[in-house]
């Protein structure tokens, strides 16, 4: 592993996607849990727990997409065109999610609100699932042509392993979202969601073990770097410890620390994914030589340099005011006249 600009950008894209997973992960998870709450009051609290921050969270995906376009145009082009219908479905899910949050509480009608509740929840689950399925396909590998195109359509993507990764993603985001809800709410709702957490953790661990097992058994290309640099085994090891820490913190009522553990677990998962893929970005199977990697899919060194300068100027500022916004809206959700 040499630290060239291509590697730096591989890591930076990973940072953007990790930021997206951590941040939009919890609000997608809140969406997945939304229908399991019963009263209108609880549902308003659910939506308003993510109210001020959800669209900022989604910007991480948009910027991640833009950065991928700029730094690795061929990865952007191949994945988005190759996964055409899957990405269209994701886009529609994101549209319905955004509008559901905005529109739901605008009218008192119960039917109106129920319709948007379903829309919010289903679109959150579908978004998480599709993101996971896309990642799963990238890991397992898709048949790329010599020109680096995937011609297989939607059916070629709905295979067992990617679907397992998709379900794992839903489970991860739901667990993450539940911890967030416990942190942001009080009273009855908090008590109930707190009771769900052990089960959600169990489901996630089951999915995680399955995914890991399948990867170890069937995706040897994902483990070569790990075996070449055994020191890297510290990443999965830490991951196990961090996930195990979540129920402990919840048990002691330290929701913020539980949430931080969940965030760290996600970063480590992304790191593991990155270590496994490096230097490939879309693995080609069966013809591995057609894989798109950080060199054959990259933009010019000049663009990598300029974009690095832009990122180094821009991202610290972004992080600074994102932290400020979270700080301003810290504490339990209170419904007031400005709420959704």
């Amino acid at each position, binding site marked *: 592993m040499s630290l060239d600009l291509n590697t730096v950008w591989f890591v930076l894209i990973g940072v953007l996607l990790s930021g997206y997973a951590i941040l939009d992960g919890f609000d997608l998870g809140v969406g997945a849990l939304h229908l399991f709450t019963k009263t209108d009051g609880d549902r308003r609290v659910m939506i308003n727990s993510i109210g001020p921050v959800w669209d900022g969270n989604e910007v991480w995906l948009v910027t991640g997409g833009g950065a991928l376009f700029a*730094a690795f145009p061929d990865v952007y082009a191949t*994945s988005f065109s190759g996964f055409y219908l899957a990405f269209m479905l994701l886009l529609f899910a994101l549209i319905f999610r955004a509008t559901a949050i905005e529109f739901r509480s605008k009218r008192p009608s119960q039917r109106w609100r129920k319709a948007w509740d379903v829309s919010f929840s289903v679109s959150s689950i579908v978004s998480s699932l599709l993101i996971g399925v896309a990642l799963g396909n990238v890991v397992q590998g898709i048949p790329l042509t010599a020109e680096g195109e995937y011609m297989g359509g939607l059916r070629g993507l709905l295979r067992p392993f990617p679907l397992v990764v998709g379900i794992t993603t839903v489970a991860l985001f739901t667990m993450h979202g539940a911890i967030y809800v416990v942190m942001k709410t009080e009273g009855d709702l908090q008590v109930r969601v707190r009771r769900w957490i052990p089960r959600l953790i169990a489901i996630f661990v089951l999915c995680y073990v399955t995914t890991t097992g399948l990867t170890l058994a069937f995706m040897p290309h994902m483990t070569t770097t790990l075996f070449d640099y055994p020191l890297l085994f510290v990443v999965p090891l830490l991951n196990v410890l961090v996930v195990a820490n979540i129920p402990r913190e919840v048990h002691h009522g330290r929701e913020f620390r539980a949430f931080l553990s969940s965030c760290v677990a996600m970063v480590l998962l992304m790191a593991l994914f990155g270590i496994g893929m490096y230097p490939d970005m879309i693995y080609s199977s069966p013809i591995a030589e057609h894989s798109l990697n950080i060199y054959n899919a990259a933009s010019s060194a000049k663009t990598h340099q300029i974009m690095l300068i832009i990122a180094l100027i821009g991202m610290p500022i972004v992080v600074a005011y994102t932290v400020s916004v979270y700080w301003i809206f810290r504490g339990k959700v209170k419904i007031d*006249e400005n709420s959704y």
Partner: protein
Amino acid sequence: MDVEILSRIQFAATIAFHYIFPPMSVGLGLLLVIMEGTYLKTGNELYHRMTRFWVKVFGLIFALGVATGIVMEFQFGTNWAAYSRYVGDIFGAALAAEGIFAFFLESGFLAILLFGWDKVKPRTHFLATIMVALGAHFSAIWIVVANSWQQTPAGYHLVARGDGFRAELTSFWEAVLNPSTLDRISHVYMGCWQAGAFLVLSVSAFYLIKNKHHEFAKASIKIALSLALIASVLQLVTGHSSAEVVAEHQPAKLAAYEGHFDASAPAGLYLIGWVNEDAGRTYGIKIPGMLSWMIHGDASAPVTGLNAFAPKDRPPVNIVFQSYHAMVGIGMTLILISVLSVLYLWRNKLFQTRWLLWVLVFAVLGPQLANQLGWMSAEVGRQPWIVYNLLRTSDGLSASVRASQVLTSLILFGLVYLLLFVLFVYLLNEKIQHGPDDSSIREGKLA
């Protein structure tokens, strides 16, 4: 229909629908800064209520802009993969910069703008309002940079790759400040300011006609009308300079704007007309020599016409001609409406002149239509190129996407966007009916 025309229709439809919202965010964002600034300076509660009402409208518009904007970020990859590979080095960089410098700024501070009234000090809230407005303006800069590079590429060289070429960056600043960027960004800004100003004018004039919220409506009109007048008049200036750039760098597009066919002859300016593309003739009322005079300062100077280009290198003429002329016509009408309204306001007659108030109610459609038509003439006029003189639109498509897939997504976009539009108009109307009265907003919210 083949995949090219379907992908073009889908891109045109989704960008046109998206572009209903950002111009209002940009224009209204600026007005919010003025309104809240006036409140902080004067301490007058009226401006506080005014800001809070328009912030709610802003929130709705912004949400639709976000929901439809994500589609645009990814559609280059889904439908225009070959284009993405060709321009990623430059075009992708502009989009990424937009995310880092604009989207984060807007969405981060939007939280404070919408939900932070009781959480931060008034001055901090005002800062958030300024940041949201700045973010909206920055966003326009980067997207116009990206688009202008398609129109007048600069700061690049072609590098062989696979069977073909791709454009790679040689100078960041030359690419960003390509020949058309500055004129087009100012033209886009004025269109955005008009969209925001005429929205506020429309709603406020409606209140006066309905005999409601007098103080609020009058004060809103005074602020919005100033911006409407400035933006409408300056739009003439930026429009002219944009056209000059087109004349210099995209002569085929300029010839299509005016339906000018003769390869090299003095050209007139049509007030109204119809283009027969097969016959290569334009019929209508024109001022002879006017186009030559506007470009070269000499009514007898020759202007390059469409016949100077091979038929395969020409844009569709009549649609460009009509959209361009409709845009100019609407622009002139908006100047007239602004000047007239200011005169009536000057003589203390505007608020009682019902016909003019009705004109203002419907004038909100003017900037919307002109913005759409302007982009239509700019983008259709760029055809058959996706990057002017470098890459043809037909060579920019995704190799792996089939017509049936695009048809599916196109139909879905049609249905979903129709639903969104109906809901947007319905909810906007609800907000307007509720009005700026704080207590009624509160009741509506907690119902």
